[in-house]
């Protein structure tokens, strides 16, 4: 698994629950180190070991943790660069949803080794109901996307309802209902990044 995913999971646990919890996860998961490097690759088993250890340590289901991870990735100020990259998808939440078809390709442009599921957006003909299908590894990424979709809706100021639906094997599907696209002001976004980028 790409170090970026492992490092994100680590930072999410550290920033949200504190270093003590993280050290507990490290020892439960028998990690031979206590920090992942974003630019190195790791055995997939380590990632799932960390996830299970965190689930045990915090007494939270893995699905909940993954969704919270997705929300964290968009909303925590430490990850401003990722939020910005997602906002490049479009000026409105609907444009953002459509840009998810390209997310895999965009990610590969930046980091060719990063493996994300292929994502396809269906529906939207009546303008409000969409279905996002995530196909392929890493397992559980659909849950992370749920958190991302929710946090991005806040970012754009849109009001959405999300629901899991049973997809075919190897797929994770999320039903998205856009209730209101301008529900709140959302967060500021300018193409021109912070100086120094």
């Amino acid at each position, binding site marked *: 698994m790409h170090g*970026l995913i492992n490092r994100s999971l680590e930072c999410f646990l550290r920033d949200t629950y504190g270093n003590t919890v993280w050290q507990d996860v490290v020892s439960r998961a028998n990690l031979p180190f206590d920090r992942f490097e974003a630019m190195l690759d790791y055995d997939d088993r380590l990632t799932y070991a960390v996830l299970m250890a965190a689930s045990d340590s915090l007494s939270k289901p893995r699905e909940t943790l993954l969704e919270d991870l997705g929300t964290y990735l968009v909303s925590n100020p430490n990850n401003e660069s990722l939020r910005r990259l997602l906002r490049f998808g479009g000026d409105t939440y609907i444009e953002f949803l459509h840009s998810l078809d390209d997310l895999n390709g965009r990610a590969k*442009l930046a980091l060719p080794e990063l493996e994300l599921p292929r994502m396809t957006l269906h529906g939207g003909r009546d303008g409000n109901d969409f279905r996002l299908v995530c196909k392929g590894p890493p397992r559980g990424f659909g849950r992370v996307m749920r958190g991302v979709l929710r946090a991005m809706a806040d970012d754009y100021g849109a009001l959405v309802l999300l629901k899991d639906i049973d997809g075919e094997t190897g797929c994770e599907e999320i039903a998205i209902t856009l209730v209101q696209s301008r529900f709140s002001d959302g967060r500021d976004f300018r193409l021109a990044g912070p100086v120094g980028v």
Partner: protein
Amino acid sequence: MGQICIARADLAQVLPMHLLLASDGTIRQCGATVTKMFPGRDLTGQMFFDCFTVRRPCDVGAVGDILAHQGAKLHLVVRNDRKTSLKAVAVSVDGGNGVLLNMSFGISVVDAIRDYDLNISDFSGTDLAVEMLYLIEAKSAAMAESRKLNTRLQGAKVAAEEQAFTDTLTGLKNRRAMDHVLTHFVEANEKFGLMQVDLDYFKRVNDTLGHAAGDRVLQQVAKVLLDETRKEDLVARIGGDEFVLVFHRMTDIGKLNEIAARIIQRLEEPIDYDGKPCLISASIGTAVSDGYQGITADKILMNADLALYASKNKGRACYTVFSEELSSKSIKVDHGEGFVSG
């Protein structure tokens, strides 16, 4: 040639960076993104050459000149305080009564979005500008992570070198390793013999044949020392041409002297460097862990050093075993010890 008709509003939709000029150079219409480069100024009715400079080709000063380069790439500079550079292509419209000029930021897009506070909607849906901005940010973020990793790895390398037990030139143990082993032997009350080996005439090799020859000699010395010791003994290089041998559970002076004699004999064999013989020898001082009350690693090293000093005083290429007499007389030559010719 067939003609098409397009509404001006639709033109603006497809080409947000276009200009429509009359044949005298008056701007008749411009795209919304062009307007953003001239805040508070209505371009319609103004002269094109008052708002833009054509930098290349350099012979363009009127609309007719632009049409002479129809279809070719033009380099423009915006006549405002930002002096943004643009790329453009022009074609004739309205049967030669006007010019359509479509522009793009090219590489200056990064500065332009900041200077004019541009949004995604300021670019045509087919423009790759947003993808380019995306790539710049994504690659910068990835590069920043890589640089952090490099810095940490560099730090780890330095730390690892500091903690290393091996001398990189000879592959022998280093001083740290020797300290470690000696401390362990003393604490565990292990018996051992210790030799300080100092090369003679090594400086001469370095001075006359160069450092590469010196390195070659040190590697050969390492080989001899390893050959003449057992697996359980420690062979360490603790300085430029200083070595320490620790013989585990061996305190028999007779045997240690035999080994010392053999080492000196073998080190005196010429060492070949690039067809030239390098000639060195060695002086040795020996001390053993027997017969001490409250022995420390430092004490036994110092005693071996005193014995080594005695060997040097005897005229080099000798070995000496430490005795209390050496300690009291400190540097007096002891003729009772073995000599080796050379």
